[in-house]
């Protein structure tokens, strides 16, 4: 059975390693500050006890004040999972650092989030529209696109 790790415990570990990196945490997920996203993600991947080598999915949700991007991480060897979240505020040019250098499965999924939500990912090698065509105006999955 894949055990979902408690967000609060992981948050404690992160607070010790990277102070002020965790904004919020709950038993199911934890929210990390966008400046520390890459460091926290690298720590989660490389620490032997956590060993999150498999990025199952990246999704984004539009809560009108902010965009929230969820990273669903899994460890194949240890069979546990974790939900990591990052928020970006503002609707004009939201952006987050890209995790492609750690997990290549982020490649197409981040491009899709860019296409449908407009969130750009700094450091992505090929950030351009993927499911819609080049001249399409707007970002359809935002709540204010009709």
């Amino acid at each position, binding site marked *: 059975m894949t055990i979902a790790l408690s967000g609060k415990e992981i948050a404690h570990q992160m607070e010790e390693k990277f102070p002020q990196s965790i904004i919020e945490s709950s038993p199911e997920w934890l929210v990390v500050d966008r400046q520390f996203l890459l460091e926290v993600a690298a720590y989660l991947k490389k620490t032997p006890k956590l060993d999150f080598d498999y990025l199952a999915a990246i999704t984004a949700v539009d809560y009108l004040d902010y965009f929230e991007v969820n990273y669903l991480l899994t460890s194949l060897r240890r069979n546990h999972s974790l939900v990591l979240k990052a928020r970006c505020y503002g609707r004009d040019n939201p952006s987050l650092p890209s995790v492609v250098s750690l997990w290549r499965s982020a490649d197409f999924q981040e491009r899709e989030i860019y296409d449908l939500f407009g969130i750009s990912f700094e450091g992505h090698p090929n950030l*351009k*529209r993927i499911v*819609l*065509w*080049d*001249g*399409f105006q707007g970002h*359809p999955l935002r709540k204010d*696109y009709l």
Partner: protein
Amino acid sequence: MEIEEVYSSEQLDRAEGEQIEALMARSQEPIPDPDEWLEEELKRNILLTSVDAMLDWARRSSMWTVVCFPACCAFEFIATAASRFDISRFGMEIIRASPRQADLMITAGTLTWKMAPQVKRIYDQMAEPKWVIAMGACAISGGIFRSSYSVVPGYNRIIPVDVYVPGCPPRPEALLYGIRMLQKKIAKISLVNQGR
């Protein structure tokens, strides 16, 4: 090895995007169905000549379809072409990839604006006489996806359609009935009238 790119990826993408936007702009109204043959028949009310009858028999008895398989209906078409429902008894088991060798397009799947210029290009490359069967709800009117931002509401926005086969997806028997209807329609076309 150094590869000098003649066209960069961005240029290709932009050209494709402009093509799609141009097609969207000029496809705001559906193309009317080609049914002049109906009026002609009522007007003239004469029998076809024997040359017409021969030609029409030859044209309808072995129509070759072109590959145009976007989505789910494609698998009902493939099931029709397989051994249980056997489209080969109508002479139609040849599914050509090259539009130059085909005379029927069975549109099996939802059409999106991104794919529309390619389908129009395939249709234009087919040689006369050519016919189109719109298969499935998505091909007739956009189907379950009609209100989406990227779906063309029916193939008759960009190409004229002869027979509409409803269903989601239509059963193979329904598709065979639609093909039979098209054969009956072709049987009524007169050479004098030039067909289309």
